């Protein structure tokens, strides 16, 4: 019992995330008369949430280093217009992708230069870029919608995995992939745990480990089944899962990941420990911009055409998602999966309120208040542990 209390106290944020999720889902399910939790709606919801979730993955790193990026949304808008312009001018898709990567790189270098090396506050720099990118968007696109993009371009945003056994009640390939993923998860975990036990780093507790692994697998399967029993995995979701896996690894197992958290936790101590702060922050912004570029491509592919207002307030959703998911605005704390779940939660709010035909007014109100609440919880939990 004591142990449970301790674990509850220490994982406060994780549990609140789950509780919030259940509360929101039950509430919307009830209010929409069961429209909310259908495979169709949940699948769509997650597709809509993917763009912001992608940004949230690296936005988390940016926030961990005690910085911010307020320009992500308008960057998506501008890159979208830019790519769509190339597409309608009959540029081939490969070259368009290359051009998008180049633009993203320049954006990352630009932010990194001012924030990491000249040491201007990230808040102001990215606020300025936000406006600059909006201007560029109107300049390039002339303030009108541009499209449609080519078939090959929209793959990333639109395509679902093909079924193995033809069109049936479920998508075979997705099912196979899911099972393969779960098997991989099990074997990787068991191998690691055995290694740890062999080295005497943990006391063996296979019952607990087994319970945890089964729990994780069950949740993963439940989420995957939404797609399996609808139209299969969209490519975009697979991209998101891969990106999450990569960054989860980077955060937990690489030198770079450690450096990012050290810079956010105590930049002076990090510097004296031999961490190159400028380089670390620069790398974070470059990675972040590349991911924003990817998100822009996926978003444009899904929507099919670029509009001058595309991407508006996406950065808000991503930042709120990060904070809801346990990233501390004071820096030094955060996790990839939490950030994505938090952002998906924000997408659920969007989706649920749309289903209820609530207008923009109430959506803005609710989302603003959610951010306030999330930050309050962040600060309170810091105080409790501080």
């Amino acid at each position: 019992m004591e142990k449970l209390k301790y674990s509850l106290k220490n994982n406060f944020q994780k549990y609140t995330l789950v509780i919030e999720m259940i509360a929101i889902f039950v509430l919307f399910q009830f209010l929409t008369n069961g429209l909310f939790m259908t495979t169709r709606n949940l699948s769509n919801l997650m597709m809509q949430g993917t763009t912001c979730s992608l940004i949230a993955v690296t936005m988390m790193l940016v926030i961990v280093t005690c910085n911010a990026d307020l320009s992500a949304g308008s960057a998506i808008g501008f890159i979208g217009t830019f790519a769509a312009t190339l597409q309608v001018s009959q540029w081939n898709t490969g070259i368009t992708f290359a051009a998008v990567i180049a633009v993203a790189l320049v954006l990352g270098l630009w932010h990194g230069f001012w924030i990491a090396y000249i040491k201007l506050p990230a808040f102001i720099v990215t606020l300025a870029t936000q406006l600059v990118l909006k201007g560029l968007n109107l300049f390039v696109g002339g303030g009108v919608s541009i499209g449609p993009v080519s078939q090959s371009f929209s793959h990333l945003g639109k395509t679902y995995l093909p079924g193995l056994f033809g069109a049936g009640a479920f998508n075979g390939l997705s099912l196979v992939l899911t099972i393969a993923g779960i098997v991989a998860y099990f074997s990787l975990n068991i191998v690691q745990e055995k290694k740890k036990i062999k080295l005497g780093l943990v006391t063996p507790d296979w019952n607990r480990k087994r319970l945890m692994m089964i729990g994780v697998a069950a949740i993963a399967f439940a989420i995957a089944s939404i797609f399996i029993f609808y139209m299969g995995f969209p490519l975009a979701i697979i991209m998101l899962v891969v990106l999450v896996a990569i960054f989860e690894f980077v955060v937990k197992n690489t030198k770079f990941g450690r450096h990012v958290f050290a810079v956010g936790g105590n930049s002076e101590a990090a510097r004296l420990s031999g961490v190159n702060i400028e380089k670390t922050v620069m790398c974070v912004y470059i990675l972040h911009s590349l991911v924003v570029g990817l998100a822009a491509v996926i978003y444009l592919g899904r929507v099919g055409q670029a509009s001058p207002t595309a991407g508006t307030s996406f950065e808000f959703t991503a930042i709120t998602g990060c904070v809801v998911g346990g990233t501390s605005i004071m820096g030094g704390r955060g996790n990839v999966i939490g950030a994505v779940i938090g952002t998906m939660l924000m997408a659920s709010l969007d989706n649920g309120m749309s289903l209820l035909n609530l207008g923009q007014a109430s959506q803005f109100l609710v989302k603003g208040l959610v951010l306030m609440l999330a930050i309050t919880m962040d600060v309170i939990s810091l105080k409790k542990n501080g």
Partner: protein
Amino acid sequence: MEDYILEMRNISKDFSGVQVLHNITFNVKRGEIHCLVGENGAGKSTLMKILSGVYPNNEFSGEMIVNGERQRFFKIKDSENAGIAIIYQELGLVGSMTICENIFLGNEIVERGKINWDIENRKCFDLLERLHLSELPSAVIERLGTGKQQLVEIAKALCKDINILILDEPTSSLTEADSKNLLNILRQLREQGITCIYISHKLNEVLEIADTITVLRDGRAIVTKPIAEYDEQSLIGYMVGRSMDGYYPECNHKPGDVMIEIKDWTVPHKKTPGRFILDHVNLTARKGEIIGIAGLMGAGRTELAMSIFGALGEKVSEGSLILDGKLQKQFKEPMEAIESGLMYLSEDRKRYGLLLNSDLVTNISLSSLDKISKRGVIDKNAEIEKVHKGIRDLSVKTSSVFQLAKKLSGGNQQKVVFVKALLTEPKVLILDEPTRGIDVGSKYEIYQLMNALVDDGLCIIMISSELPEVINMSDRIYVMCEGRISRELDAAKDEITQEKILFYAAGGR
């Protein structure tokens, strides 16, 4: 019947089940200087936080009687109203505001919504006079030295019309001269009827100033006696619960080849041309040797260490650095210095040494991730093994390697920083105030560790403001004054005395 201004009776307190204070009874006579000593974690700060209302009345058991009246404090304001003020180790002043503004901060003299500056300034002037602080009320805090800032803190407390003043490690960041001055002021305040509770690790200070000493150990009040009944040995005996044969372990260093040599090391002042932060500093240190760097606050000791380590942020205009026989380029980043075998431990481990919210593994491996990773990917098992070994070797007291750094006591935090530094396998280790703010027992362990490292051929450069420490630990001492080395003193030639160090530190030639 004694006249007690303060009686704390049967005070017990626990933090989520862990008992930190056991039935403490602590009585202070009117108008005395009562020193409270004990190792880190003995419960001094907790007791004082109870007295000053930081921990509200319902979070501990026992009763407090101030000036004959039973008091229940729920917030700091309550204790201030009862005439108690506390001054912490870390100063609580607003750097960009003036002395006068700081003294009356939160206590402004207001008439019809407007601050009456005339009265404030006059009162402030009187207070500064009383503390012999020759500064104008309009002087800005950040322009003052630490010693003067400390006096402003006291002025701020006095302005609230208090009769019990609590000082928590007030001299830990003061120079010898500033400390002396502070102690004199406290004596004067005693003449003026102010009772003072004084917490300090510096036993010589305590023995100099106290009327009564109470020793706490492991959350219990061990003994309260008038000063005449103590001497240094017995005091240490009460604190550690056993007698110690002196502070400093026996050692017999055998210096070898020259490990690091600095020639004409010069750093000009950025803002005022013609002035120097460091002025043609020459220094050599050998394998298997501890070099002490002594000097007053502001003599440029930390700046010297930081500039060698590539962390000062000001350009070195001339000078050369020879490390292990090789001429080195001046380091631009600490990273380069660490790779070349030089490591620096900051004087302020909380601000510049630790990631307080991270666990010990993350903290300790941070400087040596290269050694345990392949192509940027960390071998986590190797990492934990190394950390395990490190904290076992230095007997860091912690429940696990995944404990957060902030949960450890000062002495153990210092050991953690040591483990971290040693994992980088340095050839030269620069220690900046390695025992600041840690208890006697941990200090002894740190000294033993330093000796063991030196015996293994490490070269240690130690900056310290505690004269007995530099004198007893160093083979040679460089005394610094105003950015220059004013004198080198050699233990082998019996040149080292407290008087000589103070003489050269004050600019004597």
